[in-house]
């Protein structure tokens, strides 16, 4: 289980759907923004845990790396003519963006390092 929960999953289809639904309720006035934030935070936790727990699929990506970027421990790759093989499915994409945050264990380890310098 990851102890650091990232918010970037909110940009996914299911995350955007939740954000849109919450925004509708906020506009209607039935839900406060603070409550909506709590829901999204819960979504981060639930989605991360569910993926870790229930998804076992392996994938492989190949392609031409157009650009790469590392900023604040977040890698962003732009892949041209990507071929993604997931389980038995192959997906081809002319342009694929990969956003990767540091994986959980590394993230928590990194968070502790600066404070423990002697």
């Amino acid at each position: 289980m990851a102890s650091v929960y990232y918010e970037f999953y909110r940009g996914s289809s299911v995350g955007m759907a939740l954000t849109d639904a919450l925004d509708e309720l906020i506009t209607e006035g039935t839900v406060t923004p603070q409550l909506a934030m709590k829901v999204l935070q819960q979504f981060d936790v639930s989605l991360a845990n569910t993926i870790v727990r229930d998804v076992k699929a392996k994938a492989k990506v190949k392609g031409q790396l157009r650009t790469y970027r590392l900023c604040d421990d977040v890698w962003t790759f732009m892949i041209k003519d990507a071929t993604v093989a997931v389980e038995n499915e192959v997906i081809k994409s002319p342009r694929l963006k990969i956003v990767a945050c540091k994986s959980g264990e590394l993230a928590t380890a990194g968070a502790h390092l600066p404070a423990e310098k002697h």
Partner: protein
Amino acid sequence: MSNKIVPSIYRAVIDDVMGSIKHEFEEYGVSEEVLQDLQRKWEDKVIASRVAEFDPPNPAPHFPSHSMPMMPQYAAVHNPYPPPPQVAQSQSSQQQVKTEPVDSRYMLNNANYTLPPLPGPKLNGVPPRPNLGGQTSVISFPSGPQPGRPTIPQVDGPSDDSDDSATPPPASYAPRASHPSLPQPQASSSAAPADSEAINSDLDDSDTEDEDLEDGAGANTDIVFCTYDKVARVKSKWKCILKDGMIHANGKDYLFSRCTGEFDWV
């Protein structure tokens, strides 16, 4: 296979979230009706996004002609359904299906992390969310009561006016031809948007710029959200190990627990 498991994963996530926020809703004094409303809206939007085959939560025929209960084969490549913009129109007759968010999301040429415009007078300029990579874009939202407001969302980047003028008068700007790093004038006339920009860094790599602009081209950009365990490079060969990811490609969602990437940087 990982597209087939998507509905069950999403179902588990929705149930988990709903169960966990129940006591939050009680704490804030919000009724359970709102909770169910949220769940319903959420499910409707996820189903409307058509990223996988979903079983409609209610037995009521929301989608009489489209999704059938859990088809055994999800050929992601052979999509039996028309692309989203057409689907949105054909689904407009069905109630409770918000076609506008799907429609607008695919039509918008903005970063896909911004909010799509909502129908009717409900929305009052909700600010877009700056998210990954700092991509922000300004959308003009359609508002019902305001007359004369354009309903077409704004697009980032060079203005449309520049498309008409073939070669804007170069006299008022620094002559681009004299800059050593720029292509010859006859070649630059084809890059009309760049010429018409008053303030433009001559050092910008136009190649990267175009990619970045297309990159924020809305939900049709294929994207992978994941974490990385290791990213390594030998000469121009990049290898990475990715974990717990969600792929959105060709309008469908896929999930993986582990992914190896091999790229060639040119």
